[in-house]
């Protein structure tokens, strides 16, 4: 009897212990999680409460001093670069380990390992795009061509790994505790993979949609609705620029045939509209103090932990400060004692698709001219939590991986398309660019640093203490004949090959232009006189014009003026289109009380998308519904297509409201722009009725609900919803619902560099820390924190110090 009761209680106790230590279904291991000594409670401490005076970091040649300012921004003082990057890896991991690991897992197509079959399709897509393949080639390249950079990247990895090695259960980031897994070792490969992942985030193509559009609309109508240059082109490089080099522009081959099918594929994910950025620099002749001022605000998904992590990195030779990407070396957007630089995405179609004709079902060879070329097979082993490993065979051609085939996202058995993308080229060295930029002293150093940079193409703005301002659109751009790569191409026709690459020296650039400023906002890089084919679907048409008109008119510019411009919420698209909408609606508006109220609010609106403006809410719904109505018939053709951009749609409404594009063929009678504007307005009334009933207030901030979301969307408690701030897509302060200014920086390059920065997050990656989201209110109200360079001796405003030894 005693044995029985003992055994049953023992069994129960063991079951409790085992149950508490393991996850059951979706539940985390509860006893591990709730144990106050090791579980999530330990993540309640902020970093200053855990401050250590001394930490051990092996293989340093000399001690590295880390001084945290009151915002938890670490300032690293090392004696040489190897020590510096080793310490950067260690300190970054200390504050952002989970995030850097999670992002590289996503980039490697390894999410199913953590979350199970739900992520399998996403992982397959990531791998089929060949990001990991590109990163492997990148490592090979560094091994052969640039062992110096490789040594630095490896030192960084060792720093991260030493931190992982010292990590106790108590200090483990909370996401690991909840999801019940442990960090893996970091490696140089992962740092490169992260940079490839940035390409994936920022680069899109619309070849699929344009191929379908050409079939649906015909070439002439396509060109009319989707012109390659807008009427009022205000490009990145000023229109006055004269191109003095001998162009290598290849002629378009005669009688090309394109794959003719209507393409029923599921399009790749595209960078979300509103993803973009601003940067500019004004020359000393336009500023009050006579020094150049540079500003940069990259717009990305608003996430927590923030994509950016601020640091100052110092050796006796240089001191650089700004925003780093956890996982990558150096500062990505920042400044040093001599220069400042910033980045915006330089979209240009660098991703093309080729139809592959296989010899037979074995897919071992494909047609190329008169011959058959052999393929290579890459087997992707995708581990899936709770299931067997999934093996995905990806066929590689000389163009690149066959992303779409009979096993993946294609309705038809015989469709195979290979992806050609700069990311698959080994001979690029983005990491070196940033390491060199961090140390650059002048325009020459900046230009030399950029020579190593291939993708994702960026507009690199530059300003120096010596008074230079510059802009260079840097990336590796394929040399294309006119319209090459706008549509899916036939991979069997060698004439469809990229014709080489545009020489680095021919990339658009400008130095000290007469207008006294340089700027970019993801618009067309150049005007039509640039002697190379330039095309992308997603060019910006509003932020650039607002920015340039402001910069052109401003004199005696101060740092505060530049801050205000980053926060500028003037909606140029609304200013240009609302009068047209109102005009087209005249006489057709409902006479209801609500309709009249909205109309008078719209008419009284000053076009500023401030958080308390109701006009912006009403306009954004009305315009979106109108555009939806205009292009609904086109979008409903059954195959993926893309709408003409807002700029063209507005131009059509303004110039040709009776144009046949407004007519709905399926409906009786003839429709014009008036009809769609009225449909849009009626939809606005319906939407507002629902909104006012459910939510009440429709001030802009309350309507757009800017949310800074944790990288795992399910972890809602770790997100910050409903941030009260203005702006929106197409506006200089591009903060929408989930996207916006992910980092703002303004730097004045006087004798002493003055700098300000802010991002919507905090220095800590730990949701329990007081530094997790403390920047958000500052960011939301358009304020900044001080980012001046800090000398080692400067003892003011220190949170705590740590010596790495």
């Amino acid at each position, binding site marked *: 009897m005693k*044995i029985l009761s003992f055994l049953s209680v023992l069994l129960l106790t063991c079951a*409790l212990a085992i149950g508490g230590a393991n996850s059951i279904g979706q539940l985390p291991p509860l006893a591990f999680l*709730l144990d106050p000594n090791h579980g999530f*409670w330990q993540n309640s401490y902020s970093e200053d409460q855990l401050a250590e005076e001394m930490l051990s970091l092996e293989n340093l040649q000399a001690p590295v001093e880390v001084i945290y300012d009151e915002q938890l921004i670490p300032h690293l003082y090392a004696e040489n670069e190897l020590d510096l990057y080793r310490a950067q890896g260690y300190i970054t991991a200390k504050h952002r380990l989970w995030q850097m690991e999670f992002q590289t897992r996503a980039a490697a197509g390894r999410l199913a390992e953590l979350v199970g079959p739900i992520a399998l399709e996403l992982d397959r897509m990531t791998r089929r795009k060949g990001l990991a393949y590109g990163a492997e080639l990148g490592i090979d390249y560094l091994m052969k061509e640039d062992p110096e950079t490789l040594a630095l990247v490896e030192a960084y990895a060792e720093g991260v790994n030493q931190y992982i090695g010292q990590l106790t259960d108590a200090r483990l980031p909370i996401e690991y505790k*909840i999801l019940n897994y442990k960090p893996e070792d970091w490696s140089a490969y992962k740092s490169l993979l992260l940079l490839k992942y940035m390409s994936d985030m920022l680069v899109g193509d619309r070849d699929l949609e344009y191929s379908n559009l050409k079939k649906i609309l015909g070439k002439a109508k396509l060109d009319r609705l989707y012109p390659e240059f807008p009427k009022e082109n205000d490009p990145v490089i000023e229109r006055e620029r004269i191109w003095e080099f001998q162009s290598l522009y290849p002629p378009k081959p005669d009688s090309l045939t394109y794959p003719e099918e209507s393409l029923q594929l599921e399009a790749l994910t595209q960078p979300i509209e509103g993803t973009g950025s601003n940067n500019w620099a004004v020359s000393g002749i336009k500023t009050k103090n006579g020094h150049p001022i540079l500003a940069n605000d990259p717009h990305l998904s608003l996430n927590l932990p923030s994509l950016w992590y601020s640091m100052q990195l110092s050796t006796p030779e240089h001191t650089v400060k700004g925003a780093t990407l956890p996982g990558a070396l150096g500062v990505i957007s920042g400044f040093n004692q001599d220069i400042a630089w910033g980045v915006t995405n330089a979209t240009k179609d660098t991703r093309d698709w080729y139809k592959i004709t296989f010899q037979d079902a074995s897919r071992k060879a494909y047609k190329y001219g008169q011959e058959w070329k052999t393929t290579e097979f890459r087997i992707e082993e995708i581990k899936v939590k709770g299931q067997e490993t999934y093996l995905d065979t990806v066929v590689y051609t000389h163009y690149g991986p066959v992303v779409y085939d009979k096993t993946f996202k294609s309705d038809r058995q015989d469709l195979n398309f290979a992806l050609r993308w700069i990311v698959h080229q080994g001979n690029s060295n983005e990491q070196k660019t940033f390491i060199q930029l961090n140390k650059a002293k002048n325009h020459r150093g900046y230009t030399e640093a950029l020579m190593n940079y291939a993708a994702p193409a960026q507009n690199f703005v530059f300003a120096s203490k010596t008074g230079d301002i510059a802009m260079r659109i840097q990336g590796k751009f394929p040399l294309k004949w006119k319209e090459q790569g706008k549509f899916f191409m036939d991979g069997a026709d060698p004439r469809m090959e990229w014709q080489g690459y545009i020489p680095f020296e021919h990339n658009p650039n400008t130095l000290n232009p007469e207008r006294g400023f340089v700027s970019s906002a993801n618009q067309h890089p150049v005007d039509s006189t640039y002697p190379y084919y330039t095309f992308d679907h997603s060019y910006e048409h509003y932020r650039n014009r607002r920015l340039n008109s402001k910069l052109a008119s401003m004199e005696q510019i101060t740092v505060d003026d530049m801050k205000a411009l980053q926060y500028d919420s003037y909606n140029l698209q609304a200013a240009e289109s609302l009068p047209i909408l109102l005009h087209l609606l005249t006489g057709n508006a409902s006479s209801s009380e609500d309709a009249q109220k909205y109309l008078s609010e719209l008419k009284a609106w000053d076009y500023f998308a401030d958080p308390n403006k109701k006009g912006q809410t009403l306009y954004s719904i009305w315009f979106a519904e109108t555009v939806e109505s205009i292009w609904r018939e086109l979008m409903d053709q059954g195959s993926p297509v893309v709408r003409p951009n807002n700029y063209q749609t507005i131009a059509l409404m303004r110039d040709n409201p009776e144009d046949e594009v407004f007519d709905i063929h399926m409906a009786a009678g003839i429709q014009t722009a008036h009809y769609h504007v009225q449909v849009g307005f009626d939809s606005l009334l319906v939407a507002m009725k629902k909104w006012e009933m459910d939510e009440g207030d429709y001030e802009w901030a309350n309507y757009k609900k800017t949310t800074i979301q944790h990288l795992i969307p399910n972890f809602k408690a770790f997100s910050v919803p409903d941030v009260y701030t203005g702006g929106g897509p197409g506006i200089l302060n591009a903060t929408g619902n989930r996207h916006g200014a992910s980092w703002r920086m303004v730097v004045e390059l006087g004798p002493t560099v003055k700098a300000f920065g802010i991002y919507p997050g905090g220095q800590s990656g730990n949701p329990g820390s007081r530094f997790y989201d403390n920047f958000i209110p500052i960011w939301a109200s358009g304020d900044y924190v001080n980012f001046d360079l800090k000398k080692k001796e400067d003892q003011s405003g220190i949170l705590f110090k740590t010596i790495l030894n």
Partner: protein
Amino acid sequence: MKFLLFTLLCALLVVFLNLIAPFWVVMIAIASVATLVRPSGWAGFLGGGLGMGLAWLGQALLITLSTTSTLPDKMGILMGLGSGLAVFGLTTALGFILGGFSGLTGVLFRNLIQKKPSDVYLG
């Protein structure tokens, strides 16, 4: 007396041993202490439970008061419990159950190995 002593010992185990060892080591230790201290069955359960449960509660409270972190509330929402208060409750309850069953296991084990005294003069 034994009950109080045992409860206190269990709480001390959590405070010192749990600092360096995971919860299941503490469970084994509580069971071992129960075999040595020999509380009665119920006292073993209750003492182990209160010792570990209250120690966990105390530690959680101490951390939260000294950090003023909002993490318990965030975890409450994340775990579908609604509030930080519920997370404190769950932590205490879990500590109680783990400690209690460990204590009871120890007591029952002791009963099992303890030979019936056969040479006692009952006269």
